[in-house]
């Protein structure tokens, strides 16, 4: 018997992963949650049928969304993480001793429960005593915050589901308002390759670029995401992601990584010509 999980990356493109075992399948108030055991990618978490993470390649996403801002801002103490119920982002952030507080806002408690049980490695630092977990709609949570955080990481799902509100002007504006005057916001910015994704990416870049004085996009290669090619947004009130990078300082921390390096950090901001054009169109 052959059992395969398939996901449409575009209406005419499908990505399939062979499955050994379907470990978890539940419908929460917000979405369908599934966890599979697979021979190539290890355990795979999907929400509404979209791959959120696999044990095999999650390090790329989690390292790139955290170490980039952490190596630019000289003194990050207070962090807000939105989404990220799997715990991967928190796991990376918790490696920094200088961080004082990580507020995690996840709308769906069932995602967290499922990950604690089936992806214990990812969720391993959720019990760190600097981590405060709030089950809430992030739009609602953040409009109450003003001048509170050094860093906001938006680790949401696609803009076409329950996270739609996290790709809006009101959301990015609230993030701006919630950051200190030298704060940074990093968000997952989708993929520029397939048309549907590219339009959503342009739309959110347009909104962010109109709100933050510094707004740059960087890239990473993530095999299980659409086209294997993923973008992150780096928006900030003060620091430039490359000019203000302090490689020596970061290297002294002696953090072992599998994807991120300070050289790759700089390279990730050099984008292909077609993508530069797409971004320029909406800036």
């Amino acid at each position, binding site marked *: 018997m052959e059992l395969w999980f398939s996901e449409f990356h575009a209406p005419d493109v499908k990505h399939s992963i062979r499955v050994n075992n379907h470990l978890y399948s539940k419908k929460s108030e917000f979405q369908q949650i599934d966890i599979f055991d697979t021979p190539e990618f290890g355990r795979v978490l999907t929400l509404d049928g979209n791959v959120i993470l696999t044990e095999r390649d999650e390090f790329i996403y989690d390292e790139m969304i955290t170490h980039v801002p952490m190596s630019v801002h000289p003194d990050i103490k207070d962090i807000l993480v939105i989404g990220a119920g799997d715990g991967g982002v928190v796991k990376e952030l918790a490696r920094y001793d200088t961080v004082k507080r990580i507020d995690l806002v996840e709308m769906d408690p069932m995602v967290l429960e499922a990950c604690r049980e089936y992806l214990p490695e990812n969720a391993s630092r959720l019990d760190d005593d600097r981590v405060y977990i709030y089950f809430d709609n992030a739009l609602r949570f953040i409009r109450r915050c003003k001048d509170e955080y050094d860093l906001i990481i938006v680790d949401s799902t696609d803009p076409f589901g329950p996270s739609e*509100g996290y790709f809006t002007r009101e959301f990015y504006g609230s993030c701006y308002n919630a950051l200190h005057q030298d704060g940074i916001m990093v968000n997952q910015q989708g993929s520029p390759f397939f048309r549907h994704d590219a339009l959503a990416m342009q739309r959110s870049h347009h909104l962010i670029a109109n709100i933050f004085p510094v707004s740059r996009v960087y890239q990473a290669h993530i095999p299980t995401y659409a086209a294997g090619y993923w973008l992150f947004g780096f928006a900030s009130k003060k620091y430039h992601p490359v000019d203000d990078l302090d490689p020596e300082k970061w290297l002294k921390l002696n953090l072992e990584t599998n994807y991120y390096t300070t050289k790759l950090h700089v390279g990730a901001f050099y984008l292909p010509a077609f993508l530069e054009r797409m971004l320029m169109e909406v800036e």
Partner: protein
Amino acid sequence: MKMNQNSAPVYEALQKFRNMRVVPFDVPGHKHGRGNPELTAFLGQQCVAVDVNSMKPLDNLCHPVSVIREAEMLAADAFGAANAFLMVGGTTSSVQSMILSACKRGDKIILPRNVHRSVINALVLCGAVPVYVNPEVDTRLGISLGMEREQVQKAISENPDAVAVLVNNPTYYGICSDIKAIAKMAHDAGMLCLADEAHGTHFYFGENMPVSAMAAGADMSAVSMHKSGGSLTQSSLLLTGENINSGHVRQIINLTQTTSGSYLLMSSLDISRRNLALRGREVFAKVVSMANYARDEINSIGGYYAFGSELINGNSIFDFDRTKLSVYTRDIGLAGIEVYDILRDEYDIQIEFGDIGNILAYLSMGDRPQELERLVSALAEIRRLYEKDKSGLLSQEYIDPEVVTSPQEAFYARKKSVPIKESAGLVCSEFVMCYPPGIPILAPGERITKEILDYILYAKEKGCSMTGPEDPDILNINVLV
């Protein structure tokens, strides 16, 4: 409700019809969509296949005897009316049929000035004469309220020859008059009580709602099923009470209603009525709780005032529709229409309308908490980014109209076009209104005053969409010669 509300006869007949695979040699010419593939691709095969004409198994809207008649009886039962009529020309057609059934040329009808344009249009058609009851105005919010009982009684006493009293139940903003007392006053004086319930469908099904017109003893009501009831745009119901001759009402409806009634609209009424009868209570409890939540959240932003049942004063605000989410915006220095425009242009959020002092977001059975969070956050952001000094904003006052001649006389009289700025003192022969809400600032037959002109020019300047006059730019206005 005494009948079995689980059935939906028009819908069931259409399903049966579809399964019979009938060969169409009748209109419509698209023949179940085959003749118009582009339209079929756009609307879907399911939809165009039931866009069919009257035929024996599907009954006929002009003279219903089978499935449409049954659907109407079920609707009457669900709404607590003696009779119900499926309407396919919008609630405008329900309002007009209601007024044309009650009044004829020269009859007086007592009504508040903040009626929908369709009411005064009906007066143009039938030649009845309006007697306006001054609706109270909330001077802070700048909105017209309901009619006070004493004012209605006074109008009835002064016009014993009037034939009907019309009540908005509720107004666009969700404000209710004491319709039960008004219906009794009207009946005691031998007049009919008519209700415009364009915004009141849910009163018939939700718990702890303001009283519905039929329960309050009104004789007729125009109900916009397509607003809070969930049916397709342009579908509506006309309800009548025990004292109304339904055969006469049917004749009146047939004067202006199409003979090709749309089965898409009728089936949507049928399915929606069934849904409301079976699940309306839970559905509207959810809407009220979302509206209450949004009110609390918006009020906690500061600067805005999302008003609710605290406004109730026992008379001109006899009751308040808690599903309505109206927000007073002038304290942040922005006119409602400005907030309305910013929400659409900058935040991709379309709300129902903005007037000078307020916005109205329409909440319904289709809303979800995550979209409400977007609306609240966008309002918080608008305050943060756009707040201005509030001086210099005009407040909205009720302008008591001087009715010089009946709407019909004025509409058909000899007239000339003059520049609007020079029209003070003359008698208007057409409508001027902001749309929405579509409540006339000037109606045919009313004297134009400087106050009214100031208001029109201010509303135009703030970006209100003005409609009514022949001149689309509203630089000129038609007046009586």
